[in-house]
């Protein structure tokens, strides 16, 4: 890996340095825009005691749900974990800890973490279990709670196209948490559908500038759909 060629040729190289008890921030919303191959690599490495920060925990047998199979996750920081029987079972057995975090707060924690902002005030969660034990402050007559930002030892993200500098673009709603996750990892690994020549992506269309990306690997994606609903199934609009 020399200069600004961040492309690696194996998943082993992409995730090299991941160790037990590290924190990994993962992009994706449900199964949309998840770094499938990087997650599979973590499963293969069988790294234990991980703290995973991701909006969801995949489903049984796919996405981050894979890391539940050998109990690799110690703690999950998520906004919604309702798609996963194994998750619920490990949670109820006390084998897994979960920190349920409002979705916007989670996105902002990653964004702030990546931007060097250690904490921020938000009205979200005030007066609820989320606000318990947290510092509060009134601004202009409204109550806010102090939320601390998140950074990770690794961030794993998924994009549509990237160049070797790590400049990348996302496709449709596969963007979701990926841009924030990208900024918040000490080592950010990008799994991408397609590598393009430098200059092929217009500088003005880049979603995530390459400065945030340390390693790039080209993946093959299954892109599993969680809920396929067709216009004929339901009269929505």
């Amino acid at each position, binding site marked *: 890996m020399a200069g600004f060629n961040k492309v690696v040729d194996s998943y082993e190289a992409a995730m090299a340095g991941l160790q037990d008890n590290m924190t990994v921030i993962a992009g994706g919303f449900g199964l949309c825009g998840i770094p499938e191959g990087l997650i599979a690599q973590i499963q293969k490495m069988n790294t234990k005691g991980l703290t995973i920060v991701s909006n969801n925990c995949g489903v049984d047998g796919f996405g981050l749900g894979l890391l539940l199979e050998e109990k690799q996750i110690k703690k999950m920081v998520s906004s919604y974990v309702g798609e996963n029987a194994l998750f619920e079972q490990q949670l109820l057995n006390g084998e897994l800890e*979960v920190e349920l975090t409002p979705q916007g707060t989670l*996105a902002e924690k990653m964004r702030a973490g990546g931007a060097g902002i250690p904490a921020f005030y*938000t009205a979200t969660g005030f007066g609820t279990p989320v606000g318990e034990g947290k510092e509060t402050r009134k601004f202009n007559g409204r109550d806010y709670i102090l939320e601390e930002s998140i950074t990770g030892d690794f961030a794993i993200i998924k994009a549509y196209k990237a160049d070797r500098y790590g400049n990348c673009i996302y496709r449709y709603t596969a*963007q979701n948490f990926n841009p924030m996750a990208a900024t918040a990892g000490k080592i950010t690994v990008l799994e991408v559908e397609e590598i393009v020549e430098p200059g092929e992506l217009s500088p003005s269309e880049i979603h995530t500038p390459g400065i945030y990306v340390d390693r790039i690997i080209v993946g093959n994606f299954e892109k599993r759909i969680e809920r*396929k609903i067709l216009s*004929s199934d339901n009269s929505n609009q």
Partner: protein
Amino acid sequence: MSLSREQIAMRVAQEFCDGHYINLGIGIPTLAANYVADDIEVMLQSENGLLGMGPYPTEERVDADMINAGKETVTAATGASIFNSAESFAMIRGGHVDLTVLGAFEVDSNGSIASWMIPGKLIKGMGGAMDLVAGAQNIIVTMTHADKHGNSKLLEQCTLPLTGVNCINKIITDLAVFEVKEGAFHLVERAPGVSVAEIQSKTAGKLVVSNDVPEMMF
């Protein structure tokens, strides 16, 4: 007669105003998108990062990269934009979304809402609901008036863990429409054929009833 899910959704859609940006929660709120009046234009926000949510796709247009906040396949409407999750919640938390409609387990007469957790039973998470109730200009709850055991969901004080405090402006149930203000549920409309007495008997929280409560119009 109590309203069907579709009728609740129809009544919800009457709250939509021309030019509004609206976030609809999963379930009955989402159904309301079917009943937007022909003479208005609204933009639906989906908190996973889509402003201008369109209908579900045809088989040919199914795209794994195009989903809504319920993780369902969806399309983008003309005029749509797509963005990241921080941007999406900047819209929500910054008060730019005009109206949020969401479901709930309980609402109390101070406008507090419980919608995300039943201790010992249900551990799924709040998703974006806490951000939505903290951020939107106007928040409407849709739910059945009572649970399946007949217990009122409109309470003096919520018993379940809260999603937000003092934030709900209006409630549309299968029996009635209420405004929530000054520490009470104010009955503003009743479902066709539902008596004020029935609504009173099924509302546990403080209820304010004026002399003449009109029936809903569809």
